[in-house]
């Protein structure tokens, strides 16, 4: 057996899902007895059979990856419950095994996969999808790139219709159908508060958290996921704020973004502009803008 064949053979066995009791399956994906299969390439020793030696790696693989997903998506776990969450993660990892050198990217395809496979979240699919999007945005905001922010005064000086402002790479703008940010914050607080507490106390707090999930009603919210001093924050936005920022993020000029955002609203122009000025002041104080260009030519299409 050459190197590539051996590695393909072992990887296939290592990545094969565990049984419900978290042991290596007795059958290979093709139905062959796993013990016989393992014996074809792994030596037994005086204490462990070939099967048992391979099982060590099989279990380590699943425990490592499942705990990584649990760490990255505690909100999704709270929404689905442990059993359904584990089943979803297992199905996801079978369909989309890791294709990155870092575990940080393990959940990168979870939203896309979950949209195509709604059966795993069942009736909780809408809120579960919202949660996955938020928790992935949290990860991206945590270690996303940052550029030198521009000062509020620089924006004021250069303000004009053709101004293009770029948002920091780490800022994520999201629209949700459920107020999932509240649940994530509750979970983070729970983990901080109960780190050193007894199991019984943690269980009581956990039941309270689960009942909080059950009470989440649909409510459209707009959120910016960003960071201040290297900590990630969620900032709720008004709908026009969100649409304005989204337009800027997509490369629209300032003038076009404002026009598009407020053309459908009934407020007076003066009040609108005062509000926009206030928003820009806040956003630039938060360091959200990083590039200033004046380009009269549309730059939205690839050449």
């Amino acid at each position: 057996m050459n190197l590539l064949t051996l590695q393909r053979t072992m990887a296939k066995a290592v990545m094969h899902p565990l049984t419900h009791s978290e042991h290596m399956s007795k059958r290979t994906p093709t139905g062959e007895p796993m013990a016989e299969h393992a014996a074809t390439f792994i030596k037994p020793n005086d204490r462990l059979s070939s099967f048992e030696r391979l099982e060590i790696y099989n279990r380590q693989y699943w425990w490592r990856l499942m705990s990584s997903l649990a760490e990255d998506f505690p909100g999704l776990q709270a929404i689905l419950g442990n059993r359904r969450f584990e089943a979803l993660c297992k199905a996801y990892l079978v369909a989309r095994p890791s294709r990155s050198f870092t575990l940080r990217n393990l959940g990168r395809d979870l939203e896309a996969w979950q949209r195509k496979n709604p059966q795993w979240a069942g009736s909780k699919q809408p809120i579960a999808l919202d949660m996955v999007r938020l928790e992935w945005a949290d990860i991206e905001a945590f270690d996303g790139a940052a550029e030198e922010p521009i000062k509020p005064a620089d924006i004021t000086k250069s303000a004009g219709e053709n101004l293009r402002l770029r948002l920091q790479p780490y800022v994520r703008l999201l629209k949700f159908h459920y107020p999932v940010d509240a649940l994530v914050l509750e979970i983070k607080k729970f983990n901080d508060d109960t780190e050193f507490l007894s199991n019984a106390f943690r269980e009581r707090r956990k039941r309270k958290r689960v009942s909080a999930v059950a009470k989440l009603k649909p409510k459209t919210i707009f959120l910016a996921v960003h960071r201040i001093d290297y900590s990630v924050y969620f900032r709720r936005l008004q709908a026009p704020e969100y649409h304005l920022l989204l337009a800027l993020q997509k490369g629209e000029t300032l003038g076009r973004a404002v026009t598009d955002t407020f053309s459908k609203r009934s407020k007076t122009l003066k009040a609108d502009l005062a509000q926009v000025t206030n928003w820009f002041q806040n956003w630039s104080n938060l360091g959200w803008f990083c590039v200033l260009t004046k380009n009269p030519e549309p730059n939205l299409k690839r050449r």
Partner: protein
Amino acid sequence: MPANRFNGFTDYGIGIGLRSPHYNHILTRKPVVDWFEIISENFMIDGGRPLHVLDQILEQYRVVQHGVSMYFGSAHRTDREHLKRLKDLVKRTKTPWLSDHLCWGSVDGRYTHDLLPMPYTFEAAAKTAQKIRDVRDYLEVPIAVENVSSYAEFHVSEMTEWEFLNEVVECADCGILLDVNNIYVSSQNHSFNPFDYINSVPPERVAQIHIAGHSKYEKYILDTHDHPVIDPVWKLYDRAIQRVGHTATLLEWDDSIPTFREVHNEALKANRFLAKSVLARAV
């Protein structure tokens, strides 16, 4: 051998792994530590807190990079994105050498995120050595490969693990990160004499030594890095130091991580053996 071409001709002493539970202590108390080892993958990102902390650490301490996903022994070529990010980090840290494992863990673009054992064959040795040379040429920094702990052996193997290690490092002309805990763990799992392993390693290629704790189960030992170093491992370390001399030594403690002081005190126990080595050479 202390300073050699595989550790960038540095003379580092005892170091510990840089771990997030200790960040606050290190940055506020500024303890005296000879050097820190970082896991490269934790800092191969675009921005945020980890890099901010790293930059602060780099202002005050010496740092060496250790990787867990280069997979020198994988049959397929290394991911270009991985190499590019790693090179960016090498430039940031100015690491005097870079280490990763003599193992594989990915195939056909799918990653197990584990350190899987090699078949000890001449084919595997040749391919692994070529990969090490390619990575070293790209990164332009000395490379040291670490022996892993393992729980399985393959029918196709043509030599012992230490013969395989020697074959690879000679063909690649690279250094060795000698993990004496891994030698102990593997010796118990595969029933060989760990001193045979230590005694066969070419001392002039040893760039660094790892020590660590592990977990003992009924039928095997698991390399968990979550306990103090046990006496049999210290004995192996002692023998290694006798053969290779005063060498950069790193304690790995990656799980159930205790306080900084506890980890550092455990690492400093290596001084008992390093001092003996200095005395022996003086006499």
